[in-house]
């Protein structure tokens, strides 16, 4: 592809936001039209990207495009191959890349002072099989959110602008291949989300938004330090100071782990973690909060309870995946050793999240809160899949990320439709709606089934592979995670049955008379349901794009272990042992 498709995708929503900003706020139809059009265009481009990615002769082949000031892009042989790379200078200059302490300092500094390294951060974009699907999911969910937002919504213009900006932020996280750029988008995306939560939600949205922000940013700040730490440690040992991810992945391979930090007290020396392990933990903290993993989850139920449904479509649908994405993209690649060292910890946290989220969902009576806890449970499963650190688990985690995005968006849309009709989020106040809302009942049923892994619906594939991956690490992990799916069946059925089945009951304060779904409501739910079904029966499209990347991530993480015949790493084979049929 000769044109910078990723840049266009990235900034199209921002352009949309600017266009919307120029429209008078009374012209609601136009504003909504532009928002939908922008989102649709992004989805269209994402589809083009998917097709182009699919059409690559060999997905492992790196394809580079563009150049910076006449120079061809610097090529690195990274363990992870990224396609459609674009690079331009941003902080520091591209020509300085890989040259170590350089001539950027023109002034003759005072003699006793060492020359600082340049800050080599570039505008570097690229996708792999992992990101390409999440980009598509982003496009889809934002389009659905744009369609789902009501034209009567107060401050429609503000909502549309913020939504477009946050889409750029999310896409930036997925597309960036530079640590600083990544962090930049990672945090920047929070700003529009904060305002969306603050301005458009339930009654307790203010404190919820504040909690969300303080919690997530406080976690991320340590990641910022870790990014710098990786930069300087790698730079000091290899002479290459760069924030470029592919280069940094290579650098971190050759960086020796360093000595454990130690503390001498009363003659006893306490040894702590090595620098690489500290860095890993800092990254992991940020991602764990974003996902979130128990016990760092308490921002989530409040935020999900307070958010407006269109907002939650992408907030729950894609933003929470960014944490899992970060684990795969950054933790496994940059810190393969610590990834293995902390594997049991992360698995334990994942399993705890699965069970804790499931139990909390079992008890919750507020539908949106319940979905929030269910989300914690499901994403715990994703983390288990990632830190199984094998091909099956990782593929499962990637598939499950996409699936969960579809499912959670669907669940929140359903919750929103119920809330719009009955002005309640309490599942006990509703019953027996299926008779008068058959279409809704059918769509809701499929989504609810998918939520606990009904076969031939999409999430079964992911859950199966994740459990298999976990099983390969230790059967106990899979059993514990599996128990979570049983509880998931319990609470999801109870939600569905409680609300849709039994004899009809609606709250007294609800407006009299309700109707089944309008056409636009079907239009937002139906694509989700259709995708959930199609990807369950025929998951190959996702797998085809992701398996090469997933394998590369596993291989990358396996650099962290000295292979022993019994280790899971021994599963990866060269051609000598024969490729699978």
């Amino acid at each position, binding site marked *: 592809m000769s044109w910078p498709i990723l840049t266009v995708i990235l900034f199209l929503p921002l352009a949309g936001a600017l266009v919307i900003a120029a429209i008078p706020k009374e012209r609601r139809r136009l504003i909504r039209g532009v928002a939908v059009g922008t989102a649709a265009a992004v989805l269209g481009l994402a589809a083009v990207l998917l097709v182009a990615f699919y059409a690559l002769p060999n997905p492992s082949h790196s394809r580079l495009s563009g150049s910076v000031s006449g120079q061809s892009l610097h090529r690195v042989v990274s363990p992870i191959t990224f396609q459609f790379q674009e690079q331009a200078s941003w902080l520091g200059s591209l020509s300085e890349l890989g040259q170590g302490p350089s001539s950027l300092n023109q002034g003759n500094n005072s003699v006793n002072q060492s020359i600082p390294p340049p800050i080599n951060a570039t505008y570097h974009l690229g996708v792999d099989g992992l990101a390409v699907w999440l980009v598509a999911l982003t496009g889809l969910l934002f389009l659905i959110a744009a369609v789902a937002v009501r034209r009567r919504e107060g401050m429609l213009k503000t909502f549309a602008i913020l939504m477009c900006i946050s889409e750029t932020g999310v896409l930036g996280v997925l597309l960036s291949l530079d640590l600083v750029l990544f962090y930049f988008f990672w945090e920047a995306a929070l700003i529009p989300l904060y305002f969306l939560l603050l301005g458009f939600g339930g009654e307790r949205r203010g404190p919820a938004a504040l909690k969300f922000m303080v919690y997530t940013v406080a976690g991320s700040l340590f990641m910022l330090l870790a990014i710098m730490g990786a930069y300087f440690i790698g730079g000091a040992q290899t002479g290459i100071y760069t924030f470029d991810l592919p280069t940094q992945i290579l650098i971190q391979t050759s960086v020796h782990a360093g000595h454990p930090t130690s503390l001498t007290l009363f003659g006893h020396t306490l040894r702590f973690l090595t620098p690489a392990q500290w860095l890993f933990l800092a990254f992991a903290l940020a991602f764990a909060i974003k996902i979130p993993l128990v016990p760092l989850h308490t921002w989530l139920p409040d935020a999900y309870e307070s958010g407006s449904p269109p907002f939650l479509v992408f907030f729950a649908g894609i933003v929470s995946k960014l944490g899992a994405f970060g684990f795969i993209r950054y933790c496994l690649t940059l810190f393969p050793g610590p990834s293995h060292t902390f594997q049991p910890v992360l698995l334990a946290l994942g399993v705890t999240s699965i069970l804790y989220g499931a139990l909390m969902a079992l008890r919750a009576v507020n539908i949106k809160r319940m979905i929030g806890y269910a989300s914690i449970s499901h994403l715990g499963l994703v983390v288990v899949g990632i830190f199984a650190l094998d091909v099956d688990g990782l593929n499962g985690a990637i598939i499950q990320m996409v699936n969960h995005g579809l499912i959670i968006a669907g669940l929140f849309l359903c919750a929103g439709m119920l809330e719009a009709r009955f002005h309640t989020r309490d599942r006990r106040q509703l019953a027996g709606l299926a008779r008068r809302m058959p279409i809704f009942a059918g769509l809701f049923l499929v989504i609810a089934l998918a939520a606990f892994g009904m076969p031939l619906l999409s999430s079964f594939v992911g859950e199966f592979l994740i459990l298999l991956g976990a099983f390969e690490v230790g059967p106990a992990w899979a059993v514990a995670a599996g128990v979570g799916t049983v509880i998931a069946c*319990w609470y999801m059925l109870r939600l569905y049955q409680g609300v849709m089945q039994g004899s009809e009951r609606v709250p007294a304060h609800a407006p009299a008379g309700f109707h089944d779904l309008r056409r636009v409501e079907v239009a937002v739910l139906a694509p989700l349901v259709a995708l959930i079904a199609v990807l369950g029966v025929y998951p190959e499209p996702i797998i085809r794009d992701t398996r090469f990347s997933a394998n590369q991530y596993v291989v990358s993480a396996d650099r962290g272990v000295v292979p022993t015949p019994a280790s899971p790493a021994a599963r990866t084979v060269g051609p000598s042992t024969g490729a699978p049929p």
Partner: protein
Amino acid sequence: MTIGSTFATVGAAVVLGLPLAGFLVISLGGRRLPRAVVRWLGPGVVLAAFACVLVLLAATLLRPAADRSVTVMLWQWLQLGVPKVHGVPGALGFNADFSVTIDPLALVMAAIITGVGGLIHVYSVGYMAEDQGFNRFFAYMNLFVTSMLVLVLSANLVFLVIGWSMVAFASYALIAFWYERPTAVAAGRKAYITQVIGDLGLVLAAFLIFVSLRGPTGALLHTVSLPTIFANVGPGPHFHNGLGGSGSGLVTLVGVLLFLGAAAKSAQWPLHTWLPDAMEGPTPVSALIHAATMVTAGVYLVVRFHPVFQQAPIAAGLVAVVGIGTAWMAGVIGCTQHDIKRVIAYSTMSQIGLMIFAAGIGAYSAAIFHLFTHAFFKALLFLAAGNVIHAVHDEQDLRQLGGLRRRMRLTYPAFLIGALALSGIPIFAGWFSKEELLGSGLVLGPVTPWLWVIGVSINALTSFYIFRVVWTAFHGAPRSEPAEAAREAPKVMTIPVLILAGLATVAGFLEVNFAGWHPLNLFQAFLQPVVGVVRAHAAAGADAAALVAGTLLSVFGLGVAWLVYGRRLIPADLVSRRLPWLYQLSFRKFYWDETYEVVFARPVLRLAEGLTRVVEPNVFDGVVRGVRDAIGALAQDFRSFQTGYFREYATVFFAFAALALLFLGLRIA
């Protein structure tokens, strides 16, 4: 690709595709689709599939016995394996395709599913005629048939699991079909959650096989393909292949996990409590799912995995013991229930227990044969009971029935035939299959004689409780208004019942196999390529003793029922007066529901409650709040220095300036 495999591919696609198409058309059509279409389409696709199964059956029979198993791939489902590319090592990931096996076992199952299923679909046209959810019902029924076919045809463990779970969903949807009844909704949920537990067992078994099955060279196979698994699971030339050799812990664990799945599906202890509740569904559903097909899937699973169980004698023994125990327990419970459908449900549980027992001891052919005949007579019993219920306007309590013999002149003989077949009275289908099953039990294995004694005694229980139903419901005087006004069902409902009655009468003659005398051995011969011959050295004398004892006990049970409920020579409340604990134990279904409530459901809910009330606000949120409050307190402390008095500012300033001097001074020192 040979002609055979092309034929099998097309055949399997058609067999699977027809009911699936029915499901999709009906469900997407929704309420707009006219009933006239659905009433033809719903049963039509299943019967067409049945015809197709018959063609496949014929084609298979035309092939030589050794060549009757064909496996073909329909589509590649998942392929995670990656070849080595550009120096990046490849990986042996999980690979799964949707392959189907057309072999005698699968065909027998498919024939039952589509054949009996087709009849029940036809019956449903009448039974559900007045129901609001007519279209929805047929959509679910077609989905069920599709799922069940996926289950039995799959040549891949993952698709077996998929079919297994889809069946559970269809079952759930049909149990909770009348969703405005709270009991139906609760029953559906209970059934589904139990199934999910079983699915988990099956999934774990699949994982265990996937990660530990080794081929002849000792290398890990990483496969979920059933033919490959079966070919390699046994002992091979190397020490480290298969699943670690016969009797090893691994293969036993696989067996136990598989049986966990089978137990959930076949309502065996300890996952049996959902089946009686499932009778909340419409009666055709009970006939199709909870008698003829789905609940027998556990038997199918054990038989299909007989290579594994043959390597795992402990697991197989467990299967046998659980099967016979469940059979006996269900028989005891069946004697005291008042709901006509629940009695039949417990009889189903009991009979499947016997099949499981047979599969556990290795009498695979006998198990499948009983499954085969059971499908006819149990579907018959349910449909006949359905006629009764239909006639008395949804009254299911035996105490409210009575005297229906004269009012339902077609249903009564049909039910009677079903009861006779179930009891194992000679010449009816059940007699042949049950005697073969029990006869196998006597000759196989060292522990089994004791189990066999129990098994034979079940005959007496069975005939007692089913004839209790016959006499209570059909004989005597009507005991309620609706029973008084009962009418025979329409033809669309009676004809399938009569067809099933005919089959329940004659199906046994496929396999005439007594005490070493086997003039007709069609069924076993047909299944032999799959399950092999197990009755190599039957002791003729013992077999004959089994035959005689079993038959006599059946007649004995029938007689007792006649004395108690027909003649009323023995008071019906004899046991409840003399042995109230025994009666209560039976009536309360051995208190399993209560036990599970106390041991599992309530603790989990209480745990959830505790987490919500205590842990979440005080621990997880508590830490966050604690940090916030601590910083707030610190802020207040710091604020107290800011008094507004110039002198204090100057003093503190001076103090810190002095400290700065001191600090640098100390550094020098």
